[in-house]
């Protein structure tokens, strides 16, 4: 009961979705769209579990008074303020709670938190990549063996593709770089993509057939 019914659901809905792909008829399409909505709605309900987990972990840290226990307070404050702003907004000039209409999205504090907290930190995290790509190249691009050397040389050639200080060699490097990007790179991607496709289908098949059931838990 606890494990058989869920596995039966996996099988039934999995098989249905496979056949659905080949049936363009309106009725099949209607069920397809409806089922996608299910997935979406289940996901939204699950967010409550996620937020609960975030709160519980934060509170546990604060209670335990371990090192850095102050910081989770900031997390909780950010979370609750953002939710508060998102449900309050101006309608007809007066501030109030609005749950069923989206005034909260245009609440100025909601926008400020988004524009001046989320955006700067997130885009700076993203920009750290400029540094990490440099340090990764320095650390890992060593000509230790033939594979590492191929990786290193290909990356070097492509990185030099618009370097102006190479004179006539520059043109050859630029042409080589475009050849590398359009020939071996394409071949490599094709092989990997086909492999991934087969791996995905095999995994999905194993799941539907109930061979792979580790995700389902026990008991």
């Amino acid at each position, binding site marked *: 009961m606890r494990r058989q019914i869920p596995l039966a659901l996996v099988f039934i809905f999995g098989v249905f979705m496979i056949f659905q792909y080949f049936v363009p008829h309106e009725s099949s399409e209607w069920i397809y769209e409806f089922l996608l909505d299910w997935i979406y709605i289940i996901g939204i309900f699950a967010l409550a579990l996620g937020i609960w987990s975030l709160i519980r972990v934060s509170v546990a840290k604060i209670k335990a008074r371990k090192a850095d226990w102050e910081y989770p307070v900031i997390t909780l404050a950010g979370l609750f303020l953002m939710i508060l702003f998102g449900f309050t907004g101006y309608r007809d000039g007066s501030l109030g709670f609005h749950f069923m209409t989206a005034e909260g999205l245009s609440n100025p504090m909601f926008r400020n938190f988004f524009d001046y907290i989320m955006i700067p930190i997130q885009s700076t995290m993203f920009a750290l990549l*400029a*540094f990490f*790509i*440099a*340090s990764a*190249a*320095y*650390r890992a*691009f*060593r*000509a*230790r063996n033939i594979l590492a050397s191929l990786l*290193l040389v290909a990356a*070097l050639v492509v*990185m*030099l593709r*618009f*370097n*102006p*200080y*190479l004179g006539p060699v*520059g*043109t050859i490097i*630029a042409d080589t770089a*475009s050849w590398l*990007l*359009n020939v071996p790179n394409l071949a490599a991607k094709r092989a990997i993509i086909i492999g991934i496709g087969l791996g995905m289908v095999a995994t999905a098949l194993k799941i539907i057939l109930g061979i792979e059931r580790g995700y389902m838990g026990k008991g």
Partner: protein
Amino acid sequence: MNIFDRMMSLDRRWVFLFLAVVCVITYIVDFQIPIRVESEVRTIHEFIDTLKPDEIVFIAIDYDPNALAELHPMCYAVMEHCFRKDLKVIITALSQNGPGMAEQAILDISDSLKLDREYNGILYEGREIRKGVDYAFLGYKPYFALVILGIGQNFRLPFPTDYYGTPLDSIPMMQGVQNYDQVACVVDLSAGNITDAWIAYGQGRFYFPLALGLTGVMGADYYPYLNSGQVFGLMAGLYGAAQYEELADNPGLAKDGMRIQVYAHLVIIFFILIGNVGYFVSRREKKRQGR
């Protein structure tokens, strides 16, 4: 620990610091780097450079703000080059958000044109460019393929008036300009499938000289058209724009951006080389000691 071991295992924070300093310096300090020019960009520059005064260049601004970083520099470089050569320019914007960017480019360039400047050793006196006399901005119309086909018959079909509502017949420079036959070449700056329409429905049907300005990612897909002669020149990405700026001797946004890129890349390559020199020397040392 000798110097070579140290070269192999530098604290990565030195890499970070060095890269940040180089990026900031090349961003702030304004200096010029040479740009190696590829033939596909040179042909565009040469074509426009050898046109006679009063000939017409058609610049199609077909990109959206998200491709602005790569394509706006091309637009500036080509347009300023045309005006400095006393050519006349017809501008259209076939992407929905194009007109705003086209107007911004026209305004900025007409400011720049008021100054005397020397390009490639030739002095160009500053002048005021006038709407309708030196350029015509026709604006945006939806369904680009039909617009491109329509112009093949007559500009007045898709664009009865220009962007500002003036009938085309009342615009001095459009007198006698019917279709692509009166235009010396078309330069299409685009980040999407409008390029395909220019090749298939424009050049493919009316056989005018067509040059393309594309984003870096798209570039490689369009080289076949260069080989087949359907397109006489091609600029791809920031690097393509920088090459045009180099040829026109008019450094701008693209060369500024390339300056930072080139040096940032050099920093990374420099560290890779340091790491490898350290690796090889210390490996040889170890072999010697082991013997």
